[in-house]
């Protein structure tokens, strides 16, 4: 195996692997500080933060070092290469670069959103000189709140790494951002009247290594050190971007993409990024309710669940009528599996349907050219299918019902009085059932609705079970390409609402606490194509199912 040496540590890499010095060093946890380089963007090697010394190990063991400093980001490693990132020469270059970057910087960390997760702070602390020798006035540059609907630029914090510019040129293709001016007077800007409002625009805020580009939505809402982070998956479309959910005190403050080579790559779209506001909506369902003789009464969970169970058991005994369930593409695999297996245990006459799969337009592919046409190679797709787990729920349905039928079929049969009980699960914050459709439930004795927001169905529910949003649940969802990823509970549900997995676990009378990993094992053993779930914990990137 080809080998490189980073500060005397040995690293092996694949024969066909093309990695640079920064990446090689990362493998042995050596940090070569860098700003302009980003794995998803072209290499410009302009910030000069990553300067290192390199040399070559000769067969006799001696090392010949090059006299010149080289940017580690621009230099691919080759067999026998020696990389030194902690020599006096390198340290002096790092100090010089950081002193330059901070020359005109306002040092307004106390009021900067990035403080606490800022590479200027971190690198200055680790590699900087501690003080500036500037005896002149700092250059002042005007802030630009017009950069985008969601983005504002604190111009004098910018270190001109051009990550943001390259993102709009190379990934979104929309090219709104550019550098204007020259030398130390240059600034990031837009063409007048053409703000950076593309559907991937929010990513430039994450890409910005400093507090120059900030999200207007998040601005001044929280100090980042108060935030607690849970890994999750964006539920807004079937791309299934891996994300981090940042919350404090049971309030979500922002979503950030979490790099995943098996899923979307490094980014996420703005629909997903800002599409979580319903989590804290005032109309969230917060109390379990039961309708009795036309009256709606609030119930405790330990009262309502036995009542639901009783009604379902009774329906299961009905000789003429069956039970139906509508499984939502917003459910996790665990929830769908719990509900389906439970109902199956009550009756041999259970019908299943897939809840509405909302689609909007066509798959939206990036980068785009100046006419808005997608270009090859596609680097990001916002999918038309606006739900997270269609493929996964289809897999569960095929296992329990043999085929996948749409909700309309079940509602049609409900209208003709086929069912003694119907169990409907919602989850789509944009709504999933119309009044006319819900009218079909008129003939059903027991209507159980489990959802997060009111709907025409909840208005007719015999039992209304308030569930959890994606940020409140643990479980597994499967994206368009069959990648199964875990979502995790980041916040508690409002009021009495409860994560759906727990509701169903208790309803099914399982013992102990809701345990997604054990359910994954169970599904992996029993459901066709779900084999990889047997490992229980799916890891950072998830596992690909054989579907």
């Amino acid at each position, binding site marked *: 195996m080809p080998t490189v040496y980073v500060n005397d540590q040995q690293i092996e890499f694949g024969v066909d692997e093309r990695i640079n010095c920064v990446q090689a060093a990362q493998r042995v946890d050596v940090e070569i500080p860098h700003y302009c380089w980003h794995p998803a963007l072209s*290499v*410009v*090697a*302009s*910030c*000069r*933060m990553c*300067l290192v010394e390199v040399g070559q190990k000769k067969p006799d063991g001696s090392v010949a070092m090059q*006299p*010149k*400093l*080289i*940017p580690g980001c*621009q230099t691919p490693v080759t067999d026998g290469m020696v990389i030194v990132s902690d020599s006096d*020469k390198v340290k*002096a*270059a790092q100090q*010089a*670069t950081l002193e*330059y*970057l901070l*020359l*005109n910087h306002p040092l307004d960390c106390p009021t900067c959103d990035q403080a606490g997760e800022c590479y200027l702070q971190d690198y200055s602390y680790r590699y900087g000189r501690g003080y500036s*020798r*500037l*005896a*002149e006035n700092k*250059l002042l540059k005007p802030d630009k709140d017009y950069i985008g609907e969601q983005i504002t630029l604190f111009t004098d914090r910018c*270190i*001109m790494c*051009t990550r943001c510019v390259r993102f709009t040129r190379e990934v979104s293709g929309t090219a709104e951002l550019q*550098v204007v*001016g*020259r*030398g*130390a*007077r*240059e600034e990031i800007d837009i063409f007048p009247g053409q703000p950076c409002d593309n559907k991937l625009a929010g990513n430039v805020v994450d890409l910005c290594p400093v507090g120059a580009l900030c999200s207007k939505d998040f601005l001044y809402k929280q100090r980042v050190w108060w935030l607690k982070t849970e890994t999750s998956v964006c539920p807004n479309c079937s791309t299934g971007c891996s994300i981090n959910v940042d919350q404090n005190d049971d309030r979500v403050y922002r979503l950030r993409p979490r790099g995943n080579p098996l899923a979307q790559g490094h980014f996420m779209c703005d629909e997903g990024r800002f599409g979580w506001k319903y989590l804290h909506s005032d109309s969230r369902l917060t109390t379990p309710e039961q309708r009795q003789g036309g009256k709606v009464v609030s119930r405790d969970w330990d009262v309502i669940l036995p009542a639901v169970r009783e009604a379902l058991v009774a329906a299961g005994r009905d000789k003429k009528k069956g039970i139906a369930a509508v499984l939502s593409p917003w459910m996790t695999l665990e929830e769908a599996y719990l509900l389906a297996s439970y109902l199956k245990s009550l009756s041999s006459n259970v019908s299943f349907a897939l809840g509405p799969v909302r689609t909007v337009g066509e798959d939206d592919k990036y980068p785009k050219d100046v006419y808005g046409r997608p270009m090859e190679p596609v680097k990001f797709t916002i999918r038309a299918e606006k739900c997270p787990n269609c493929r996964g729920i289809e897999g569960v349905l095929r296992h329990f019902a043999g085929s996948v039928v749409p909700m309309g079929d079940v509602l049609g049969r409900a209208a003709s009085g086929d069912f003694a009980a119907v169990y409907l699960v919602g989850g789509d914050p944009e709504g999933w059932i119309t009044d006319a459709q819900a009218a079909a439930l008129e003939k059903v004795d027991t209507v159980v609705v489990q959802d997060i927001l009111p709907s025409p169905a909840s208005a007719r529910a015999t039992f209304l079970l308030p569930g959890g949003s994606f940020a409140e649940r643990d479980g597994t969802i499967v994206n368009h390409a069959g990648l199964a990823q875990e979502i995790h509970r980041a916040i508690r549900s409002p009021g009495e609402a409860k994560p759906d997995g727990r509701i169903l676990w208790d309803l099914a009378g399982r013992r102990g606490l809701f345990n997604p990993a054990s359910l994954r094992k169970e599904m992996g053993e029993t459901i066709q194509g779900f084999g990889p779930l047997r490992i229980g914990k799916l890891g950072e990137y998830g596992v690909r199912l054989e579907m």
Partner: protein
Amino acid sequence: MPEFHPVLLARIDKPDSTSLAGYQADGGYAALKKALAMSADDVQKMVKDSGLRGRGGAGFSAGAKWSFLPKNHLGPIYLAVNADESEPGTFNNRILMEEDPHQLLEGIAITCHAIRSHTAYIYLRYEYGRSYRVLDAAIRECYASGILGKNILGTGFNLDVYLHRGAGAYICGEETGLIESLEGKRAWPRIKPPYPAIEGLFRRPTIVNNVETLCCVTHIIQRGVEWFKSIGVPPDPNNKRDVGSYGPKLYCISGHVNKPCCVELPLGVTARELIDTHGGGVWKGRKAKAVVPGGISMGFLSASELDTPLDFEGPGRAGCLGLGTAAVVVIDDHTSMVDVLYNCCRFMAHESCGQCTPCREGTDWSTRILDRIRHGKGRLEDIDLLLEVANSMGIIPGTTICGLADGAAWPVKNALTKFRGEFEEYIRAGRRSVKPADELMAAH
């Protein structure tokens, strides 16, 4: 030494120096005919054997550069003619283009044949309006008489030459900045590798050569390798890396001399001879304090270094960056080096493209430190600070993408080491070049 007769400038004073007829009457385009009758490889070999080194600033062997092109490439291969001439003090390309455009066009055509290119772009400094008009007319004449276009001179060789007016920045002359600018983008120099010979204009193999370099090609083909090598300075046997400085060179003399001019002389003439014999001596009967050997980015020679031969190696031996563009700027002994250095730094700060942190910030900071000194607010430690800034932006190799930062650092280094006493005295005595009245004006 046999008397030297100008070759490149031989025709510039003729009344009809710019027309095709005039050029042909003096034997013009015979070299092209000769070259087209030779194989491309043979033309390349002649240029390589001649030892011709680039006249644009870096002094890199032209033949060696051409040989970096990929072999058996299916094309297109491009020639980009660097006519951006923006190094302060430099005006030789301009004279060549304004006074003898066909000499350049002939060199372009020969070079394209040698490098198997069928398309050449002349990247012309925007401010050179007259050069544009003269070259444009000359190109039209060539197309009309079968010297450019399809089937040149009946040989089956095709060549198109495009004249492109530059984007008005010094950095557009850096070869990869030039390429970016030709592609319609900001002239932000590219990282290398890949070098332009492998991946240049429109991601195709590209050779970038200076106007004067290409004019020399014409004469090498016409007069032969021996002729070219009979002019100039052979390699120093004690310096293995010296490949010699052959051929004629245009020296631009400006600054505090009686007779600013551009003269053609064998490489290796000394700064003193240029000033005294050709520049008419330092003006007002004064003495030279410092001399720029080849454009301000090469740094300064001190008065005691005026016998330095201005060949490709001489200025380096005297601590300068190199011969550069051989633009000699004379600074008399009434001038403050603080002001001179401030002016150099201000230029570089204005022209830094802004990509690389050390260049972007270093050029600007050094300018502002010097500005402070010129306002009488200097501190002795500023001298070492300036040297440290110069080191980190340009003297230590590898800290930036292109050579501008080196060129910004060298004047600082030379001025502060060769004239350190003057800076110290200026600061100690509390001198100021910017008078309060100026400050008042500036405030308005």
